[in-house]
């Protein structure tokens, strides 16, 4: 009896356990960090630190579609299962990072190799395999961003405006991987009603998205081709599904509520 009483008392007196994450604010990544993805190496015995991949440096030259459709990178880090051999054989990173492909006036450095010297390890391996440290990047974010249109949040760069103004000409074709197809007609913008009464409606622009994504990045896997068929909620988007696949970590972040919820309701 006394034991039970003790347990009851203990339960009553134990202070409320509070989840570490609940009800507090997250740190927002700094502009150079936004879109940085940590990719773990497939083989632990290789003892190579993780790869830090920066989206900004790549999207300055290529569309999303090229890597995520033509080359076949999954939309979630470490979901692709990239192996060193794949890269050596010219897949994934190795599609471009082969020491042969030219971009503008220079050659893209070769990534993984079967054999490597200590010097290689210093000079080449460490360009991607930087571990927690970002290492010394060849390209300076701030120098790049200085000339770009400004935008709230994310990288602080107006990627959309930069492309429209011709400041960026992202390539949508890589020789040997991409195939030329006749362009499809771009569907109209769609108006998505918010589920909460009084909340601004969402205008989804196919035009703005197709510049970077073509059709295949989203259809038919993420969104069914018929509007209204795929049911989703804002909750799921915040969990990284649907729009959240890109707009949580790479494309402008969802803290920019007003950028999608643009149409006031009467």
């Amino acid at each position: 009896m006394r034991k039970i009483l003790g347990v009851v008392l203990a339960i009553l007196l134990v202070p409320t356990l509070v989840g570490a994450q609940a009800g507090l604010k997250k740190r927002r990544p700094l502009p150079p960090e936004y879109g940085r993805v940590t990719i773990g190496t497939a083989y632990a015995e290789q003892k190579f630190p993780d790869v830090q991949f920066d989206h900004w440096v790549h999207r300055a030259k290529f569309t999303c579609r090229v890597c995520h459709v033509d080359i076949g990178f999954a939309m979630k880090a470490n979901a692709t299962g990239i192996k060193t051999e794949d890269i050596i054989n010219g897949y994934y990173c190795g599609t471009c990072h082969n020491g042969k492909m030219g971009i503008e006036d220079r050659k893209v450095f070769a990534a993984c190799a079967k054999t490597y010297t200590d010097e290689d390890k210093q000079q080449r391996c460490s360009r991607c395999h930087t571990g927690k440290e970002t290492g010394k990047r060849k390209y300076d974010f701030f120098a790049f961003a200085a000339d770009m249109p400004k935008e709230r949040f994310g990288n602080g760069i107006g990627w959309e405006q930069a492309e429209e103004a011709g400041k960026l000409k992202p390539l949508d074709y890589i020789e040997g991987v991409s195939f030329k197809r006749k362009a499809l007609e771009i569907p109209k913008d769609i108006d998505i009603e918010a589920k909460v009464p009084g909340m601004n409606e969402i205008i989804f622009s196919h035009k703005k998205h197709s510049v970077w994504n073509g059709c295949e990045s989203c259809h038919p896997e993420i969104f069914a081709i018929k509007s209204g068929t795929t049911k989703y909620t804002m909750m799921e988007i915040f969990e990284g599904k649907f729009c959240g696949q890109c707009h949580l970590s790479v494309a402008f972040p969802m803290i920019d509520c007003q950028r999608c919820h643009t149409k006031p309701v009467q």
Partner: protein
Amino acid sequence: MIRRSALLVLLLLLSPSRAAGNFMFPDPPPPEEYGNLLIGRTAAANKVKSVSFSHWVHRQKYTCRVCHFELQFNFQANTTEITEAANRAGMFCGACHNGKEVFGHEKPEDCQRCHNDDLRRGVEGFAKLWRLPEAKYGNRIDWGAALEDLKIKPAHQLTIEPAGQIGFSETILLDAEWAMVSGAIFPHGKHTKWLDCNDCHPYIFNIKKKFTEGLRMANIIEGQFCGICHGKVAFPLTDCARCHTDLKTVPVFKEPVSR
């Protein structure tokens, strides 16, 4: 109504120490010190005095979102990575304190205007706010009413404007944990005048009420959820009736009742 308040007091008196502990509010600072804080993450290491920051000085000129959203100040002192270099580069304090808009980092005599370790720095200016609408607690100023009556005209935007504005103003009702207490109202409209959607959503409050886990008074008093602002800067939690509108503001126990 009186009977209900009396019952609540009785309940508080009789409840086990845990409940009494939940309603232990810190001693309120004098009104002119409410919302003042010292920022000194690296002050000791750099052998400089901590910075005294006054919310009541700044909120007359800028709404919360300007600093806590655009300039990325966290809601907890000493968790934002403010450095002198960052300030000089125009981030954080340096967005305004740049020697052009307001005093910056150039003149040596200006250092002590912030780096003074003095929570009461500048309190003499508080008397000038006597025209603002009165409240019972905190700064004893009803900042919400001051804004609505245009007694203060803080800027709501500093850098790049959003694509549009979301005029979401629904007032939601949050159920109370206890049967004796009325639910709390949450007016979106009053909050969006000061804040951005993302100041609260989705990381502090889930966008769905039912998925916001741990939204309990005990956690709020510990400084989570509403307590991130209310209790430190926005009107304090002692002002029960401002949210639990059916309640009369109940007396606050400073000492736990031991029997």
